[in-house]
Every structure is written in C-alpha cells, then in structure tokens.
C-alpha cells in the first residue's frame, strides 16, 4: 500500500512538542546557558567557557557530597532490599491478613516527603521527641543535631521506614504469582526452605527486584526533602548530599554558574546510571 504524504500531519505533534519544550528542553537549556557564563545580577553575563565545570570536577566539596550520596545509596539498598524480601516472604498469602498488611505497607508511601521529614525531625528530638527522649532516658547518648553519626543513622532509618514497603510490595507481587504446584513439587522433591527460596522464589522475583533496585537507587541518589527537613545537611556538612549542596550553592550563595555546571554533571551521572540499569535489564530479558 502506498503511503500518503501530508506534511500538515507534523502539526499533530506540535502540542506535545510545546509541552516537552516548556517542561524540559527550555529549562535545561537555561541551565546550560548559566553553566558557561558568569553573572553578578542585573542581567549582565560574561562568558566563562568550561571554567565552572573544571572548578566543580576539581572541588573537594563536590566529590565529598558525591561520596556521601553513594555511601547513602549503597547502605539503604543493602538494608532495604534484603529486608523487603524478608518481609514479603513472611506476609500472609490469603485471608484477612492480606488487605491489612497491604494497607500498612502502603501507608508510608502515601505520606508527603516533607511530612515524613517533619515526623522524624520531631520524633528524634531529644527534648520532646519520643525516640530522642526515650533513647537519652535509657542512657544512650543520641542527638542528631550535633553528632554526625546520629544524624546519619536518623536519615538512614527514616529512609528505610519510608521506602522499604515499596520493595516489599514489588516482591510480594512477584511471590503471589508463583503457582502452588511449584511449592508442592518442591515438597515432593524434598527441597529445604533455603532451596525453595533460592530456586523458586528468588528466580520469580528477579525482575521485580531489578526494578526495585533501580527505583531505590535513583530515588536515594536524588534524595533531598527528608534529610533537608531533618538535619538541613548538618551537623557541619555531614549529611549534605548532592541535591542539598546544589540548592545551597544556587539559592543560598547565588553561585548560579557553578550550580548550573554541577546540575549538568549530576544529571549526566543519573542518566548514565539509568542507562546502565536499562541495559542490564534488557540483556537479562534477551537471555530468557
């Protein structure tokens, strides 16, 4: 069949083009524009070339924030993924317990992020917070405001509280899709509890686990709201992650050039990691 050519059809894509332009392309180009210039306000701009990029890539401040971010992501992944699997394995498969568990699991995911931050900010306070006060009453020297380690523990526990249920729900969806016959056959074959997990449950959860790791990694790598509300990046710079640092630089210090350069580097890293995950996932599918 011959194709009909009508160039007016291009107008059909105009709405989406405008939408994408205003929501993504133009803001991104503005950032690119800032990243290669210097400004002192008054709409005066001076060409700076790659100066800000060089400054960023050689600054300790940037690499320290990056390091903190990577440590944070790996710690929460190392805890949330096994914990999520463990909880999903122990959730009921039928009966009245199923909706109860699902609602309980979904609750933390439904709370706005800054509210989560506020909850933990209050919860951990040593003067009025249930957690902070109780720990100190029990003789544990806990104070997230002036102890870096305590601040880290608070931020990590908060993230686990907030996001483990996402991993649980994904794994649970994978688990309930396993037909009963698999468990029956495993019983007949004399498989141990571990063998059932290793050869039946884990392979069936493989795909959802990849998605869980991807989502949690991306989210934790871009984390801003919750630690900002709880610790504000402190004490000192100890919980200043990339996004917090970026906002400090752009809004606090009004260093638009370096902040823009940092945004672009940050964006490219996220893009790179997304691509790596995407490739791993599609290769895995092809192998099947």
């Amino acid at each position, binding site marked *: 069949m011959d194709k009909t050519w009508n160039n007016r059809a291009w107008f059909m894509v105009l709405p989406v083009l405008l939408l994408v332009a205003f929501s993504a392309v133009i803001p991104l180009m503005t950032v690119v524009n800032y990243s290669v210039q210097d400004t002192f306000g008054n709409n005066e701009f001076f060409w700076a070339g790659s100066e800000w990029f060089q400054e960023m890539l050689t600054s300790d401040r940037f690499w320290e924030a990056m390091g903190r971010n990577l440590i944070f992501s790996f710690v929460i992944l190392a805890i949330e993924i096994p914990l999520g699997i463990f909880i999903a394995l122990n959730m009921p498969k039928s009966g009245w317990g199923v909706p109860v568990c699902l609602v309980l699991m979904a609750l933390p995911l439904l709370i706005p992020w800054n509210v989560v931050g506020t909850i933990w900010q209050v919860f951990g306070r040593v003067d009025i917070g249930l957690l902070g006060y109780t720990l100190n009453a029990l003789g544990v020297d806990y104070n997230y405001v002036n102890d870096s380690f305590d601040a880290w523990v608070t931020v990590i526990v908060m993230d686990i509280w907030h996001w483990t249920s996402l991993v649980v729900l994904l794994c649970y969806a994978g688990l309930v899709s396993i037909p009963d016959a698999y468990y*029956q056959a495993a019983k007949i074959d004399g498989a141990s509890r571990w063998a059932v997990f290793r050869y039946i449950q884990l*392979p069936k959860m493989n795909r959802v686990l990849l998605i869980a790791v991807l989502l949690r990694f991306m989210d934790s790598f871009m984390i801003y709201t919750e630690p900002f509300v709880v610790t504000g990046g402190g004490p000192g710079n100890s919980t200043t992650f990339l996004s917090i640092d970026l906002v400090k630089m752009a809004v606090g210090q009004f260093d638009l050039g370096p902040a823009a350069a940092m945004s672009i580097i940050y964006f490219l890293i996220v893009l790179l990691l997304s691509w790596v995950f995407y490739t791993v996932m599609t290769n895995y599918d092809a192998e099947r």
Partner: protein
Amino acid sequence: MARIDLDHVRHAYGPNPSRPEDFALREVNQVFEDGGAYALLGPSGCGKTTLLNIISGLLHPSHGRLLFNGDDATELSTQGRNIAQVFQFPVIYDTMTVYDNLAFPLRNRGVAEPDVDRKVREIIKMIDLEDWSKRKARGLTADQKQKISLGRGLVRSDVNAILFDEPLTVIDPHMKWVLRSQLKQLHRQFGYTMVYVTHDQTEALTFADTVVVMHDGQIVQIGTPAELFERPKHTFVGYFIGSPGMNVLPVTVEGRKARLGEQTIELPVAPSAEGQGKVELGIRPEYIRIGALGMPVKVRKVEDIGRHKVLRASLEGQEIAAIVGEDESIPENPRVRFDPAGINIYANSWRVDGEPGRRV
C-alpha cells in the same frame, strides 16, 4: 515400593463439614497393592486430585487413616512418605540446567554424587533430552518441560509410589502415546506402585491394570477395563466409559421381563429390583442390534465416525445410541433388539444382580 491402604479416608476443604456435600472426598476405603498400576478416572471436580494429594501428604485428610505397608503414615510429612508426584502443569526450576533439575530430588536427599550422575544419565536418556543436559531448563518447550517433571518423579529409585496427576494434559497427541508406553514399560521393568489420575478414559484404560472410577467424591467402581465396560456398577460408569456411553432407560421390572413404555424386554436373569425406587436398564450401544425384528425406533441421525456408524434414535420417547458396522445398512423402518448379554439392571443408579436382595 509399598502397599498403600486408605482406611475410611474423608476430606473436606471447609471447616466443620456436616452434610455429605461438604466433603470433596466422601469416604474411601481402598487398597493400592504393591507394584500395581492404577488409574483414577473421573470428571473434573470428582475428588481424584484430592485423593492423590492425600496419599502424597500435600493434604492432611480430615478423617481416616493412611497405611503404608501396614504402618500408619497419616501424620508423616511429604518427605517422610517418600513419594514421587508429577503434576498437571510442568514444574521446572528455571535457573537450573536440565541435568541439575533431574538431580535436584536426589541431591536434596543427600545421595552420593556418583550415584546421582548414574541415575540422572539413565533418566535423561529415557526422556530423550541428552542433548539438552547442559542447557538452562527455561528455554524448553512445554512437553520437554513436562518430561523433566516426569523425569524428576522417576529419578528416585526407592520411592514408595509414583503418583501422576493428569501429567499428559499439556503434551501433544503423538508424544502422549510415546510417553504413556514408556511409563508402562517402566512399570513392568521396575514394578513401581503407580497411581495415575486422568479424566481421559483411553489414557486410563491403556495405562492401568486396575481402573478406579470416581464420581462426586466417592469411588463408584474398581475393576479391570473389561469389567468396567461389560458390567458397570453404577450408571455413571456406564455413561462415562465408552463412546458413546451406555444407554440408560427407565423401566419397570416384573420377573424376567422389563417394561419400557409399550415394549417388553426379555432379561437374561430375574433381577431383584422390584420395589427399590428408580429402576433403569442399561445397555451399551455395542449390544443393540438393528434389523427388521424387535422394537420400532425413529431414527434421528446417523454419525459416520470412520470405523463404524453411530445411530441416534428414539425408542418409546427415549434417546438411544446404537453402533452399526461400517458396511451394514440401516433399513427403512428399523427395529432394534437388545442382546441379553449386554443388559444390566440398575436400582437407584447402582447395578443389581440376578439373585434377590444383593447388590454387586
């Protein structure tokens, strides 16, 4: 190998069963002899899978006992019973190779690796997957996967029994024949006690020495294929086995005569069916003779199914089926006679014998 006794076994899935309808399995007393090949035959939902799962220990019966070689096995776990079971849909371990799949039941039981290797090689050859042994099992076709499931059941040589739960449902017809004859051969060679669940009568009749027909949660007849065909104990067996099934006609019996509407049918013996409620006469289509003599029938249609023709007709308002040889012709106004050898009399659906007061 073991002899398996089911002693007053009943099972209900819901709590507090009281009426007979609450039971998926009503009451089963059955002996599976050591080394026997049994088929459990029945329609979907008749309780045959329930019975199988009770034997393998996947289900705990709500009532009754289970004996292996005379010892109470009711409380034993699935592992403790040492039973192999093959399920309707293939179960394979995706991440393992074909070889490892077959070795899995042996390794779980701590069998020494040289023995595992010998046994697995033997089975892999039998199911004809030698070329695939190092491949991951997930790329296989449905019938190759089911062969692996079968193989995992056969790889253990010391099992008390091998149970098959409609294992050939997903296999295509040609492979069905091959696998079925392989199973039969295995049975002869090693003398496993085998119980084979199916709703396919051909499968049941060709596989088993003894066929157990189930209906509505109970066993209605146990017998050889010939017994089931000639002397169905229950009208359900008559209807379920044979194609087309037995004709069941409501009659009244007086001595050695049965009355069907205007017609009188001579019976081979006088049944003791008087005063027993619903009385029926059963005759297989194979025993109805078509000719110029006998009872007049109205022909509805004739189906030519190759080897023979099936005549569908109405006799005194009752639908009957009769088998006519491929070369026989059907007269203009056909009449039918019932061959006395093929007549069975049923009271309340159960077959009654010639001697008074005794059910068979």
